């Protein structure tokens, strides 16, 4: 579904990714693990078209989307839930959700809105409240709900558990599992290694802008290098 080949990207003159290869297949959850500054968000944002890549190739369903503007990428169904949520704080929950269907899924907007409220009843209760007044967990729900409005084919989740209480983190991973079971392909970027590997089909470990480890999630769980780097074992 998504193929990334020898991707080099960064900001301004600074190259952060030095040639990354990555695949997400149909109906897969793929986890990307790595510490702060490894290049995880750069990878997401380059796939989403926020920054033009320095080189390499990105294909979605065989179609070249490398360097395309973000609205063209959203149009194809690659939808990102960014780190820090990036909801529209000055607008109501309803308007935030409606904007989720701004570029894609417009025809079914009403139905999708009902669907999101069914998944997140909490958002329904807060419908006319400004997004800026929501709690962190609610904002995360809103960001995911907003993405669902665009009828994603590939959902990119950037650190969805960041800043949530342990209970909410559990809830969040449960939700991601449900979305996957409903047939959604997911690229999950996380620092929460154990939870992510328990959930994912496959995983990549990214360090200093390069993929250093990759494979099926259950194999990586037993990998001694990974244990040493991330679990201190």
């Amino acid at each position, binding site marked *: 579904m998504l193929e990334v080949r020898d991707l080099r990207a960064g900001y301004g003159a600074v190259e952060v990714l030095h040639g990354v290869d990555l695949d997400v297949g149909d109906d897969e959850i793929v986890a990307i693990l790595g510490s702060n500054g490894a290049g995880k968000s750069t990878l997401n944002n380059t796939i*989403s*078209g*926020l920054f033009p890549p320095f080189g390499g190739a990105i294909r979605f369903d065989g179609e070249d989307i490398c360097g395309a*503007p*973000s*609205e063209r990428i*959203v*149009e194809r169904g690659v*939808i*990102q839930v*960014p780190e820090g*949520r*990036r*909801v*529209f*704080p*000055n*607008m109501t929950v309803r*308007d935030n959700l*409606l*904007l*989720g269907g*701004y*570029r*894609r899924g417009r025809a079914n907007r009403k139905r999708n809105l009902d669907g999101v409220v069914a998944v997140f009843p909490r958002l329904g209760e807060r419908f006319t409240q400004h997004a800026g007044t929501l709690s962190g967990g609610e904002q995360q729900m809103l960001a995911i709900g*907003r993405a669902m409005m*665009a009828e994603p084919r590939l959902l990119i989740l950037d650190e969805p558990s960041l800043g949530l209480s342990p209970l909410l983190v559990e809830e969040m991973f449960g939700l991601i599992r449900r979305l996957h079971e409903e047939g959604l392909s997911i690229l999950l970027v996380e620092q929460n290694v154990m939870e992510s590997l328990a959930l994912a089909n496959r995983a990549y470990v990214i360090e200093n802008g390069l993929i250093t480890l990759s494979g099926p999630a259950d194999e990586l769980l037993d990998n001694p290098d990974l244990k040493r780097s991330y679990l201190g074992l």
Partner: protein
Amino acid sequence: MDACANLTGHGCGIILASIINGTMTGAVYALVALGLTLIYGVLHIINFAHGTLLMLAMYGVFFLNQIVGVDPYMAMPVILVAAFLFGYGLQRYVIGKTSHGRDEITLLVTLGVSIVIENLALFFFTANERNIRVPYELAGIDLGVTYLLVTQMAAFGAALLITATLWMFMSASDTGRAIRAVAKERQGARLVGINVEHIFALSFGIGTACVGAAAALLAPRFAISPRIGYTFVLIAFTVVVLGGMGSFVGALVGGFIIGIAESVGGLFLGESLGQITISLIFILILLLRPSGLFGEKLR
């Protein structure tokens, strides 16, 4: 002698009259300020070319009137569309391309654009003042306390109508939502597939269309010269800051406050000294509410 007279030396009637007159003018101030506040709210830039664009639009109205014989009010749709397209193009292909996203460059570019346009206007249109004569120039209705001109009422009504339309557009349309989204959260906006550069240019276009509309409303009442923009845009800046940067309601309320302050101040202090009232009210409100009447709290 009535109560007002004892207090002020003027009759109640004349004070009421100047409040009414101030309200009429205030609506147009609000309209010019609305364009400025929209551009500031979305692009976070101070548009120094705002007044110059108003001047250009007034010349547009003037020449349509002189050459084609179009009534200034009838010219409004044409000027509105032309101003929108001009503003859209200016942002998308000049300001946006040259600024590289840096505010100080944007500021200088709008200033530069304004200087270029103003000097071109001086060259081609000369510094002479031009007037549009309309047959209904002195028509109006007698309210008893004051004589209200048709041109005043038209300006008032149209300014309110445009403000209300813009308000509806911003709150209920998809494009309006996208504009509000871009104003506060650009990256989030890109991630839902909003073309941010297009929305920037659209906002600049709508802001310019506001001065286009204002130009048609002002042209029958004010002499047009290459420097006419300053008169209104200085007041518009005051209105925007007073009402709260980026606030629509602030622009509207601020416009009326300044319009009335100017008119009532002029009554007591004389035409030229009356302007002091604007500054006094401005300073007073900012002392009490540093972010303006409807501005967000400064963080």
